[in-house]
């Protein structure tokens, strides 16, 4: 019922361009995540959809109605959007009930109706027993749920969330993820979610938009973002990855250390082979490439290893049970199960996070 259309959006502050041209349609009931390192422009993007910032160029439509364009601007209070701010923005002088009831009061809903709907909203964020508390009597997680309840109570067309879980501890963060997902399913709304946490993005989204320095790198499903990253930045930012430099010619890639492996792709010349640690098989008897195991860390669910590959250190992750099977200092064989080859443009993508 609610789609968001972004047409040729850009945003500059003075002569600093923080969002480069971007067009996309967010479908009805879609869970879209804006993912990127901090300072890349995620909040700015979200605030343009909310109407707190005006795009420098371009047009925003909600349900095919223009809300922002060079000739037209609908202020945030007329957009019928729910939003959860990074700092919660729970009003300290109102109790939980009044905070959540506020959007309905503005709409002029009748008192009994307000009471009913606030109770429902608090129910769905598991806060019913705190209805009369003041915000300073609530924990961070509870305040965050008040903010969520307030954003949902008027059944908005669109819900915007700006790093809503970043201030919570790890356990609470995980359970809130599912609660937000649950709420979205229940209310059937379109969600735009901002985070710099890739696990969060993977776990919740229908589609992820990866940003860097105001430039959209890739728009895709979580699986594709992970398995077919569009470039080295995405590959590096989402998940763990090894980058190995080499030369590609005649169906082989020769690594800087001298070893080589066969390659059937179309890239030639200087290349970078990107391979995720869990996609490398490490054995002692035979394989395609040779190296020396230098360290091995037992993390419970996995065995996190470092292999010296002709002077480059490669990270290899195998199952936790394999810990101790190979001694540090032994020679090992490596096989790459799934990998990507990028043209080498000379930029070190492991160092530039915005």
């Amino acid at each position, binding site marked *: 019922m609610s789609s968001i259309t972004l047409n040729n959006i850009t945003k500059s502050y003075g002569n600093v361009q923080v969002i480069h041209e971007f067009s996309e349609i967010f479908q009805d009931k879609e869970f879209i995540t804006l993912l990127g390192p901090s300072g890349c422009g995620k909040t700015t993007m979200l605030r343009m959809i909310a109407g707190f910032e*005006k795009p420098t160029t371009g047009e925003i439509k909600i349900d095919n109605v223009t809300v922002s364009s060079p000739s037209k601007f609908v*202020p945030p*209070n007329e957009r019928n*959007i*729910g*939003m959860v701010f990074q700092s919660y923005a729970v*009003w300290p002088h109102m109790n939980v009930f009044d905070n959540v009831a506020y959007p309905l009061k503005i709409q002029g809903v009748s008192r009994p109706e307000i009471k009913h709907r606030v109770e429902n909203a608090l129910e769905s964020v598991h806060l019913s027993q705190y209805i009369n508390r003041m915000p300073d009597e609530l924990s961070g997680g509870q305040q965050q749920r008040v903010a969520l309840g*307030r954003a949902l109570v*008027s059944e908005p067309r669109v819900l915007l969330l700006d790093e809503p879980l970043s201030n919570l501890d790890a356990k609470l963060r995980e359970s809130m993820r599912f609660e937000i997902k649950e709420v979205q399913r229940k209310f059937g709304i379109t969600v735009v979610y901002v985070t710099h946490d890739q696990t969060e993005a993977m776990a919740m989204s229908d589609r992820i938009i990866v940003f860097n320095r105001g430039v959209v790198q890739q728009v895709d499903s979580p699986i594709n973002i992970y398995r077919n990253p569009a470039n080295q930045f995405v590959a590096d930012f989402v998940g763990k990855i090894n980058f190995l430099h080499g030369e590609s010619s005649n169906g082989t890639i020769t690594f800087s250390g001298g070893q080589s492996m066969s390659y059937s792709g179309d890239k030639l010349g200087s290349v970078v082979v990107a391979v995720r640690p869990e996609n490398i098989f490490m054995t002692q008897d035979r394989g395609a490439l040779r190296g020396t195991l230098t360290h091995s860390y037992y993390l419970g669910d996995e065995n996190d290893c470092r292999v010296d590959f002709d002077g480059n250190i490669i990270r290899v992750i195998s199952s936790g049970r394999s810990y101790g099977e190979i001694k540090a200092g032994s020679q090992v064989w490596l096989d790459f199960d799934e990998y990507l080859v990028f043209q080498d443009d000379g930029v070190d993508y492991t160092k530039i996070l915005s």
Partner: protein
Amino acid sequence: MQVKNFLSFKTVLIFLIVLFLLVFNVFPMCYLVFKSFTGESGFTLEAFKRIYTHALNWNALRNTLLTAGLSMIFGVMIAFPLAWLVGRTDLYGKKFFRTLFVMTYMVPPYVGAMAWLRLLNPRVGTLNVWLADLFGLSQNLFNIYTIGGLVWVLTTFYYPYAFITISRAMEKMDPSLEEASKISGASPLKTVLTVTFPVMLPSIVAAGLLVFVSAASCYGIPSIIGAPGQIDTVTTRIIDYVYVGSQEGLSDATTLAVSLMIIANIVLYISTFICGKKQYITVSGKSTRPNIVELGRWRLPLTLLVSLFALIVVIIPFATVAMTSFTKNLGKALTLDNFTTRYWHILFTRKGILDTAKNSLISASVAATAGIIISCVMAWLLTRTRAKGRQIPDFLITLGSGTPSVVIALALIMTMSGRFGINIYNTLTIMIIAYMIKYLLMGMRTVVSAMSQIHPSLEEAALISGAKWQRGFWDVTLPLIAPSVVAGWFLIFMPSFYELTMSTLLYSTDTKTIGYELYNYQTYHSQQTASAIATGILLLVIIVNWLLNKLTKGEFSI
């Protein structure tokens, strides 16, 4: 379209405030400076030459610099340890002491002069006589009518300015700086000396300079204490010259005022632009709870010491003034025979006093109300917009407050009596404008700091909930800043209400103020009546303090 309108709305607001300040602040000051440097044939230093060939004026300038300088040094020497003891240690009764010292800040300084006059009069001063009896001396110990006496009263009434500035900086200081010193093995005293003091140095210097300017611009104290001892200061000379009434007198006053203004502006420049910048580096934005130093076996002795200080500097003077208001014959002690409520009766019945009180009430209320409206607008412009030029009124307001009262009043007299199309001389309006220019800054600071503590997302949350910005302001912003708005209102109201210096220059027969009336009674008619008025003002200050503490749930601090 809407956005455009909104922008021009901001511009209009800034323009209006700047216009007000330009007409009533910048223009008069510039005119004053212009006048003092021009003669019949253009630029000249004639006026300065003439003024400073009088030994009297040289003396006055020297006295001003000397007394203000000494008050600054003593004031800081008192304020720093006091701020540390009250703010950062487990001293007994910290809250009480803090309230007491902050309250002194709101008391008119001339009350101190009245009290110490009674206590340390060289012949009959109560304290003098008592001390002489106690030690069996043939002569009284102290004489208030000296430079030393002047410094004493200035110090005891201006150290709270330093106390408040230093306390505020101490509260904001990142406690981990001190913790790092302790973990490195430094004792609490060593930590104070090697970390706390150096880190706070810019604030301490700023506090000292504030005391200096305030003491140098003070008129009430030197005129009450200096006059009998024939000690002139720049402020008393200026007012003497104005009272001469002639054109020449006025132009001599102008020249002296410009000297004072130059001193004040240099000091203001140093403290805002040099110390102010450094201050910024030392404090962290986090509002962390300062760690409390345990005084151990020093706790009781130090509490006693602070109590003694409070007794001598606050309680005894205030009590003296209160007691004077009940005394029939000032030559005798206050016994039952010598007790009277006559002067309190006068306070509540004499038309002259009631009329002047009404004038003060009206002009202070109007100044506070108009001032707080400007403060709110400024707070909004400074913290919520990026409007171009919003720093200009901010700068002008700071400048106005840093200008000595005599200078403001004189500049207004010179320019607002019809010569330039505006004639508001002899009206309450000119008083109100003078008060606003002098005291606006306190109100503005209070509201701005409250506003900057409200995260903008709180207001945005109201917008996204569907509220128009006016509604959001009403429902969210206003309730949150209301206590500060009230506090800011009183911070403009109180000093305006009992103002003496500017009122002395600006009053007319119909627009006398309570401060002026009190001064008149004190110097010419009846010290007891003056004391009754002063005690009334003290009570008002106490009530206002209590009210503000209630309103802000004990978090009120200047």
